[in-house]
């Protein structure tokens, strides 16, 4: 933002997109000016017609444009426009209206932008100004006091009522209810769900058939379709523990973490580039992605998982893994060329505050950056107290790559590696010195012989080769110059590419133990610092004061560890509730709380509050084990219900708020691409982890970049067909098939993805190069699997792979008929006809929707 002309009051408001103090008040605001009604001029009783005029013509303007600031307990500039006497008496700047000389009224000057400029959002419409002018001229007809709806307006306060908000109360594990249909209850989850259903007189759906269940479970835990053999193995396994064994098998699969880790990556705005002009890649960021996948696979306790990400560098035992975890701080946007560097610094902290508070606590603390939260009992100071935990964190970088290394990269090498690296570094330094010595020697023979401007130019090292070149023949031979140029080239190359330890990580760093003070920033403007605040937890959560102990290594303040310890303490009312709700959401498609990043006053209340609290307590009791929660949920009958609609409950509870059935869902973007590759046999599943891959992006899409193709590489097969979680995420270049199916927006924490349906998706699924290539691949797969060319067998296999169930005869007939028609009626070759049948199969609703 441009901090200029701050003497020009009418302009100050526009310094921040999110708003700055209105011009009238910046200089003169001194608090409330109380005006007793009897001090003011006695109001004549207005006629009914005048009042009607006021209500119909004037009031809408005042309510929409003025009352927001000029009313209530602390009206801006001490001017309350809802009270007639105040208008006449005026605020800090004097009377707002002059009934004797209406034209000279300050109010009218202000709306005409003649002295003050009101409203600060821009000049009113001429008609509105005319109305206000007319109103003043008519003698200000209005009631003595305009009643504003909801007199107790204003932001919620921290008090006993708000502290008692369901999500802010300590978690207490409620007793498990005893519904009457006890035989349906496989575990307490069912008891909570059934108790609510019985109250409502709704029967739960019967269990889904085994074919549906096996498909549901594979997608749920792995994000992948089961093969026909895997389906058969479960469907035909009639042992009583078949389900439990399948659950264990899939929880043990390494591909579980690839799928569940992706949910977490949505939440922490994971992307691999910085956005803005250069949109450069973030070095080593993929190690954070791998850390997340491994943490899920290892069932890392959730409290530990959060501790590592928030304060992995401040733990008693710091390991490469805990350093990588703090890459969490580095996943956001970074403008390497900000117009206002101070604002950019605070935007960076805001990104961290937003992600941490919404992601881990379900609190939208970002809303109180500029003013107290309008919907939650979070005063503005709470924001800055929370921000204070991060105040000492270094900004991502300052323009250059080198600055990013300095602020956000560190070595995670083992001692042996470090030793090897040291040796390499010494050899490098020696060679650089040797070359420099050679350059110096040659330059020393030239410099004394130069004259005039060349002597000046020669002072700059970067100019020397250019100057020397001009003297080939008189001061240096061609051969000697060539040697000189070669030495200089090697020297330059080495200087530009110093050896770097292979084991580095993108991570958080602080500026030592001592933190600069944290100020409340008035209206969020970093150039208008207010009171100093100390790190503290939101007041409404009745938290203890943070215990801040700087770590022994002396590189940071210890503040983030104090924050992490509070978030993950069993007493924290939000962390466990928020996470079990997410786990529920990722199994069932939506949370018990439908606003998973907002557990505040205006968030949705849980559909099953007792169940949520029971699960939250259970989560902590079971050592914050995410897999333990999976088992609980997956072993329930609630999870195993069919998704079938039934007339009565559809009428009584169309949204399925009471969980009388399992909700159908569409596959996520990554699942769609992975499934296409899986069913045609070309998914490269065995290779996990490591630097990201580049899939093909059509030239027409690359043409939208300012340098078409820049920052996008080519990964050859088979790596190009690795799972979608490994595709490079470049903020300014979304991959079409993923973007079309609503992959997460990476600029903010994304708690719930959209699931849109639009014709452009259909165009991509029918006409894109990718789909047509994969359909051809699918046809080749069928030809290979059914070498005798039996068309029915090929069709049956294709349908079985896409729908993960055996096709009926009618379905098979229809496919065979399509292939026949394409050949006989439309002249396609046998090969092409099979390909287009495969394309059709990949477009089936049943392929992308799960029961």
């Amino acid at each position, binding site marked *: 933002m441009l901090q200029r002309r701050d003497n020009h009051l009418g302009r100050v408001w526009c310094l921040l997109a999110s708003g700055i103090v209105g011009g009238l008040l910046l200089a003169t605001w001194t608090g409330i000016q109380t005006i007793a009604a009897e001090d003011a001029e006695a109001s004549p009783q207005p006629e009914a017609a005048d009042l009607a005029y006021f209500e119909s013509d004037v009031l809408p303007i005042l309510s929409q444009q003025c009352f927001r600031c000029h009313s209530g307990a602390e009206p801006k500039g001490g001017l309350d426009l809802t009270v007639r006497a105040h208008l006449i008496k005026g605020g800090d700047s004097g009377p707002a209206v002059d009934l004797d000389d209406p034209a000279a009224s300050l109010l009218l000057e202000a709306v005409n932008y003649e002295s003050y400029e009101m409203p600060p959002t821009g000049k009113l419409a001429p008609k509105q100004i005319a109305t206000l002018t007319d109103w003043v001229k008519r003698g200000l007809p209005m009631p003595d006091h305009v009643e504003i709806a909801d007199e107790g307006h204003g932001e919620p306060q921290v008090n006993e009522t708000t502290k008692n908000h369901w999500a802010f109360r300590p978690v207490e594990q409620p007793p498990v209810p005893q519904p009457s249909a006890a035989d349906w209850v496989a575990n307490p989850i069912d008891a909570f769900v059934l108790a609510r259903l019985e109250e409502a007189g709704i029967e739960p759906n019967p269990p889904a058939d085994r074919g549906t269940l096996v498909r549901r479970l594979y997608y749920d835990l792995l994000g992948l379709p089961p093969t026909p053999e895997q389906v058969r193995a479960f469907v035909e396994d009639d042992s009583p523990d078949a389900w439990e064994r399948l659950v264990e098998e899939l929880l043990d699969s390494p591909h579980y973490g690839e799928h569940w880790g992706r949910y977490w990556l949505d939440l922490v705005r994971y992307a691999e580039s910085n956005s803005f002009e250069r949109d450069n890649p973030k070095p080593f960021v993929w190690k954070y992605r791998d850390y997340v996948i491994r943490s899920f696979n290892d069932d890392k306790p959730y409290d530990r998982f959060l501790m590592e990400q928030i304060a992995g560098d401040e733990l008693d035992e710091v390991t490469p893994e805990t350093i990588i975890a703090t890459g969490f701080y580095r996943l956001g946007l970074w403008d390497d060329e900000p117009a206002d560097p101070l604002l950019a610094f605070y935007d960076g902290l805001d990104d961290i505050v937003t992600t941490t508070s919404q992601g881990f606590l379900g609190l939208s603390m970002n809303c109180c950056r500029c003013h107290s939260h309008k919907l939650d009992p979070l005063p503005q100071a709470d924001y800055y107290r929370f921000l204070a935990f991060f105040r000492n964190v270094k900004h991502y970088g300052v323009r250059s790559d080198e600055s990013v290394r300095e602020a956000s990269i560190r070595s995670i090498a083992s001692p042996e590696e470090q030793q090897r690296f040291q040796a390499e570094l010494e050899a490098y330094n020696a060679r650089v010195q040797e070359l420099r010595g050679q350059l110096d020697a040659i330059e020393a023979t030239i410099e004394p012989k130069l004259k005039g401007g060349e002597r000046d130019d020669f002072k700059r090292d970067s100019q020397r080769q250019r100057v020397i070149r001009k003297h080939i023949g008189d001061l240096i031979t061609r051969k000697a110059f060539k040697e000189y140029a070669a030495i200089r080239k090697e020297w330059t190359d080495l200087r530009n590419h110093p050896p770097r330890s292979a084991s580095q990580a993108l991570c958080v760093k602080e500026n030592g133990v001592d933190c600069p003070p944290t100020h409340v920033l008035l209206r969020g403007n970093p150039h208008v610092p207010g009171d100093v605040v100390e790190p503290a937890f939101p007041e409404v959560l009745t938290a203890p004061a943070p215990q801040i102990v700087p770590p022994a290594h002396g590189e940071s303040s210890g503040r983030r560890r104090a924050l992490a310890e509070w978030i993950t303490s069993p007493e924290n009312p939000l962390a466990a509730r928020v996470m079990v709700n997410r786990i529920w959401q990722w199994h069932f498609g939506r949370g018990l709380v439908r606003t998973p990043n907002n557990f505040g006053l*205006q968030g949705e209340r849980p559909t099953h509050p007792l169940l949520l609290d029971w699960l939250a307590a259970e989560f902590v009791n079971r050592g914050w084990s995410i897999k333990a929660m999976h088992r609980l949920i997956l072993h329930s009958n609630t999870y195993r219900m069919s998704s079938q609609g039934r007339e009565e409950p559809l009428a009584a509870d169309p949204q399925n708020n009471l969980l009388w059935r399992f909700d159908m869902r569409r596959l996520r973007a990554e699942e769609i691409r992975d499934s296409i590759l899986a069913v045609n046999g070309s998914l490269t599943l065995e290779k996990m982890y490591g630097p990201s891959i580049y899939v093909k992006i059509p030239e027409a899409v690359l043409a939208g970049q300012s*340098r078409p193709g820049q920052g996008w590489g080519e990964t050859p097969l088979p790596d190009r067909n690795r799972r979608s979680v490994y595709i490079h995420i470049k903020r300014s270049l979304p991959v079409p098939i993923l973007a079309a199916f609503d992959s997460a927006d990476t600029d903010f924490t994304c708690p719930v993805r959209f699931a849109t349906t639009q014709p*452009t998706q259909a165009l991509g699924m029918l006409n894109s190069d990718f789909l047509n290539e994969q359909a051809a691949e699918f046809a080749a797969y069928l030809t290979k699997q059914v070498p005798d060319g039996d068309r029915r067998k090929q069709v049956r296999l294709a349908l079985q792979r896409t729908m993960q169930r055996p096709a009926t005869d009618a379905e098979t007939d229809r496919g065979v008929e399509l292939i026949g028609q394409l050949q006989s*009626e439309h002249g396609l070759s046998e090969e092409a006809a099979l390909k287009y049948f495969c394309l059709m199969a990949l477009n089936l609703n049943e392929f992308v929707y799960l029961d």
Partner: protein
Amino acid sequence: MARPNDFCGRTRREFLWQSGCGFAGTALAGMLGDDFFASQTVAADGRTPFQNPLAPKEPHHEPDATACIFLFMYGGPSHIDTFDYKPDMIGRDNQTVKVRTFGRGGHKNEGRIVEPRWKFQQYGESGKWVSELFPNVAKNVDDIAFLHSLTADSPIHGSALLMMNSGRILSGSPCLGSWLNYGLGSVNENLPGFVVMLDPRGGPISGPKNWSSGFMPATYQATVMRSKGEPILDLKPPADLSQSAQRELLNSLRDYNEEHLAQRADNSNLAARIASYELAFKMQQHAPEAVDLAQETQATQKMYGLDNPTTETFGRQCLMARRLVERGVRFVQIYSGGNHNDANWDAHGDLEYNHNLHAAETDRPIHALLTDLKQRGLLGKTIVVWGGEFGRQPTAEYAKGTGRDHNSYGFTMWMSGGGIKGGTSYGQTDELGAAAVENELHVKHLHATILQQMGLDPNRLTYFFSGLDQKLVGVEGAQPIWDIIQSA
């Protein structure tokens, strides 16, 4: 009645009511109702019939304009060399003056004047001074309102482009075209509601971020259209699949899908997906027709400069824009300039070379567009906006040469049509054009004016995200520029 202190604080129900009071109830319920807030990832309520999220919606008020064409002069054209006449600078070339500037070269307090390099003369009844860079656009000045006092928050391309397109200097927010489609829907379901056309030399910095729907669903993002070849990505079936063969395939697909749906009749998403394939099939027929310039007369093609290699590309795009607007597309944005440096208006080196090139490419097509729209009676309902992400400084960037650095302290944009007062000029920069000094405007006032003219109250068009009612014009709101609005 609106409550005070609630600009950021409506409850969800209030929000639904407020943003929905003008909208068609059912369409909004389908779009933003319980299923939106409560269960974005799952089926809708099971009862709502298929609703195209882009189905047309009632505006907040009677609109003056139904479409907007935004001619984006990427890189930042120099206002004092085009439309902001500075006679006091004449004869002062190379003088060193005290003047505060801020561009990619940082903050400076003095500089060497580069006198405007083109002669100005007066045009039209309004007597508007226009430089010889735009001799044709000059003929339309009586239909144009010039805004000479624009300011923006950043003089750096990346963030300034984002600001001009989405109102914020940080990426992640929906663009103007997304807001218009979110607020108004589209009246032609066979065409996208938000179209972007790019310069063949490349996109703008940050590429797709400039036409992204940000935190809104992808439904509202732009579709990139090309003026040659396949107009929309994936619009054309593979070469060996005839239309009738594709129909055969789609019929078979529909049979499978309807059988699947029969067991799940309560899931409207399945029906919606079936319908989306039919829509896609129709788009394949209609979109190519919409951009088929062969249907235009020779005279029209010539008017737009299709006969001249210099003007052909931008001319085709302008003509396409007119055809799209005729067919109900809400928002069309055309980029003049792409890539970096002199491939766009970013005249850091040789000002004359740069601006002669880009003005020559665009002058005639823009004149044709305004004239053609007017002749067809479309200008009254179509806003045309011209400008870049910022302007340029009055002083030289370097010790030598005519290159000018970026300037977001004051620059010119113009608007025409759609109920905007022609033949007017609003706001002023100082005598050098270094900064706005009278009736200073911010980008959000431009946005507010476009929304207002298209029937949306800029301060009521909100989208709830991240705990806040987000607005294109920022949480504090902004007024339209009433002085250039005919009906005000």
